[in-house]
């Protein structure tokens, strides 16, 4: 069974220029692996700047390079953090993140397993996100958080910042790839316009 939410290009085929990282499930606890998210995100962002060369004659090219690097690093890090948090560690499927450079945009794709216990909440959150004005939702979520003692990190703020601060498009695909035990894989697609 496949379900799609948001701006998801289903028949997407990778262009010539892409970069893919795979993280196999490991016995090392999440906490000890956490810093790898930032390292990987920075690496991907840095790698991509090769395709946006700076020119001494035009200082704005360096500014653009810096902007793209910062945006890619932020988004990739958030996507990896989410994938690490939500993936079902008992499943053998790896977490992957892919960057695909197109003429007018950068497409991020992450895949991870998700346990059937949390999938309903996650889908409900996605639907709320799709139905809301991201700018309003941003403020509402923060105000709500300040009232109740929500643990920091479970805010869902990552996606809202991508929509609100980076004007990105977000989409998700849920696939049940196996039953008994049930294995659900979620693919998250983020499109960052250039």
């Amino acid at each position, binding site marked *: 069974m496949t379900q799609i939410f948001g701006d998801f290009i289903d028949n997407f085929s990778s262009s010539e220029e892409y970069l893919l990282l795979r993280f196999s499930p490991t016995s090392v606890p999440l906490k000890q692996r956490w810093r790898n998210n930032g390292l990987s995100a920075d690496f991907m962002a840095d790698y991509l700047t090769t395709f946006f060369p700076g020119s001494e004659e035009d200082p704005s090219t360096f500014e653009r390079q810096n902007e793209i690097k910062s945006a890619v690093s932020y988004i990739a890090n958030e996507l990896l953090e989410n994938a690490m948090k939500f993936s079902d560690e008992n499943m053998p499927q790896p977490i992957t993140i892919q960057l695909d450079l197109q003429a007018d945009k950068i497409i991020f794709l992450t895949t991870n397993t998700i346990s059937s216990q949390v999938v309903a909440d996650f889908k409900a959150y996605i639907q709320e996100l799709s139905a809301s004005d991201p700018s309003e939702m941003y403020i509402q979520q923060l105000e709500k958080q300040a009232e109740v003692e929500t643990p*920091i990190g479970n*805010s869902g703020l*990552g996606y809202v910042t991508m929509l609100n601060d980076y004007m990105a498009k977000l989409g998700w695909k849920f696939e049940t790839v196996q039953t008994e035990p049930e294995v659900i894989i979620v693919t998250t697609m983020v499109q960052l316009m250039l």
Partner: protein
Amino acid sequence: MEIKKDDYRVCYDQPTATIYCQGSLRLSGMNEYAPIVELLNNVAEQEPPVITLNLTDLEFLNSSGISLISKFVIQVRQKQTINMIVKGSNNIPWQKKSLKNLQRLMPSLILEWE
């Protein structure tokens, strides 16, 4: 008050009532931000007339960190006795994108760019 790790440093300079956040703050939420929350709470409790939050050397901040800073701004706003200045850097693109949201949480907050 100072919290110093490999990737980041958060400290409070009492004479100038300035909180400095530097480096890369990408902690995993959960309990990892707790010491920083405590430092921020402490500063808010002291109720100085003006608090300056200096982020000019904060290269990276994840959404959990944005959440942390936003919560602090709301806490300061609720005191109603503290003015707040946030200093950002023109050279760090995420700050240009995300710091303006703090003003929506606390309209009297002053954003300074350097």
